[in-house]
């Protein structure tokens, strides 16, 4: 059973059509939730870190929010250049591990 689940697996939007990506986790003891963007053929690029429920971070058209069991990445009025795979990673407190668990990602395509 996956500890970190991202949905949907794939999302197609028209330019300007706002939407949200979801990252949910099943293990308690969150010690950080991370969002990354990955373009084809490149390594993931860090976007946000969230540590506690209620926290929000924003960058341009992206806003990340966190509740006790999930995080949302809201994309407002997306542009074609926002097309990428968005990865979520969660660090749990179990054993003091600094190794985050990654979800499988959401592939976003924004059509002009």
């Amino acid at each position, binding site marked *: 059973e996956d500890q970190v689940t991202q949905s949907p697996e794939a999302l197609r939007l028209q330019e300007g059509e706002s939407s949200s990506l979801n990252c949910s986790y099943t293990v308690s003891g969150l010690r*950080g939730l*991370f969002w*990354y963007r990955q373009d084809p*053929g*490149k*390594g*993931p*690029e*860090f976007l946000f*870190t969230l540590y506690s429920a209620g926290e929000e971070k924003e960058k341009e058209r992206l806003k990340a929010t966190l509740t006790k069991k999930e995080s949302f990445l809201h994309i407002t009025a997306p542009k074609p250049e926002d097309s990428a795979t968005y*990865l979520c*990673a969660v*660090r749990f407190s179990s054993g003091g*591990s*600094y*190794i*985050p*668990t*990654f*979800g*499988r*990602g959401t592939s976003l395509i924004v059509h002009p």
Partner: protein
Amino acid sequence: GAGVSQSPSNKVTEKGKDVELRCDPISGHTALYWYRQSLGQGLEFLIYFQGNSAPDKSGLPSDRFSAERTGGSVSTLTIQRTQQEDSAVYLCASSQGLAGGLEQFFGPGTRLTVL
């Protein structure tokens, strides 16, 4: 400043050969991670180095895989007797580790193809 670099960017090898993949982390980052990413799959954790501590090797899929980190900086991932199922993109990441933020900064990856 320079980001994380990896070399080579692409490696094609024959089944049974050994390969070495290199990672240069961001200067001053004490934590270094290796991941594997297969087509359409998520990131699979392989190994984690933190400072001078013993590495966490819990993600290595078999004893054909090994890694070292010299002088707390450059790391090399070695795959012995490569198999076709080893074909994937190998990603390296570094972070400030225990002393700072845990967000990871990734290199561009090495695409390994085993024929």
